C-alpha cells in the first residue's frame, strides 16, 4: 500500500517568503507528526495531531510556524517569513494512533532551503 507522501520534495525560497509543506499520511492513520532534521540539531519534534484532539504544538520553534490537519487526513506545515535557520529537511510521520508504542511511518521529507 501507499506510504506517507510529502510534497514538494525540494523547496527553495527567499528569506522572508512564506512556504507550505504538505503531508499525506497513510490511509486510516489517526496520528500525524512533523519533525525537522537539520545539521547540528538532529531530529526535532515539531507538532503532533491525534484524531480530533487539540494538537501538541510544544515543539514549534516560533510563532512563524503553524500546522493544520484537514479532515483528519492531509496536513500542511506553514512557515511564515522564512529565515535562513529554517533551512532543514521537514519530515512527516503517521501511525495508527492506537497506542503510544505504535510504529511511526516516515515520509521521504521536504528539503527546504532559504536563501
Amino acid at each position, binding site marked *: 500500500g501507499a506510504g506517507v507522501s510529502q510534497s514538494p520534495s525540494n523547496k527553495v525560497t527567499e528569506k522572508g517568503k512564506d512556504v507550505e509543506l504538505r503531508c499525506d499520511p497513510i490511509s486510516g492513520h489517526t496520528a500525524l507528526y512533523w519533525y525537522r532534521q537539520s545539521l547540528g540539531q538532529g531530529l526535532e519534534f515539531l507538532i503532533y495531531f491525534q484524531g480530533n484532539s487539540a494538537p501538541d504544538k510544544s515543539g514549534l520553534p516560533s510563532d512563524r510556524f503553524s500546522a493544520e490537519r484537514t479532515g483528519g487526513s492531509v496536513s500542511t506545515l506553514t512557515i511564515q517569513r522564512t529565515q535562513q535557520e529554517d533551512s532543514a529537511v521537514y519530515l512527516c510521520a503517521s501511525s495508527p*494512533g492506537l497506542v503510544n508504542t505504535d510504529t511511526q511511518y516516515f515520509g521521504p521529507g521536504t528539503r527546504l532551503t532559504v536563501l
Partner: protein
Amino acid sequence: AQSVTQPDIHITVSEGASLELRCNYSYGATPYLFWYVQSPGQGLQLLLKYFSGDTLVQGIKGFEAEFKRSQSSFNLRKPSVHWSDAAEYFCAVGAGSNTGKLIFGQGTTLQVKP
C-alpha cells in the same frame, strides 16, 4: 526532561564484522525505546522497538537491541555487517505515556569497509 545520547557520531566497520551502536537515554519511568535507520535518500525506517517484556529485542535486517535499565542504555547490535547496512542510525525515546512523540538522539553514521 527526556533525552537521548548517541556517543558515537561516526563508526566504520569492515564488512562481516560485528557492530554495536550505543544509545543512552534519560527518562524517569519505563521508557519506550526505538531504533530507526535512514539510508541515503530514504526516509526513516523502524528497525525495532522496546516497551515492555523481554529486554532483548529482535528487529528487521538481523538487528537486535538490549534494554539495560541499570545502565540507561539501549544498544543496537548486529553480528555480521553487510555493505548495505551503511546508513545513519537514530535511537529515540517516547516522550511520555500520554503522547506518541519521539525524542531522537543525534544519530550515528555507519560506514562499511569492503
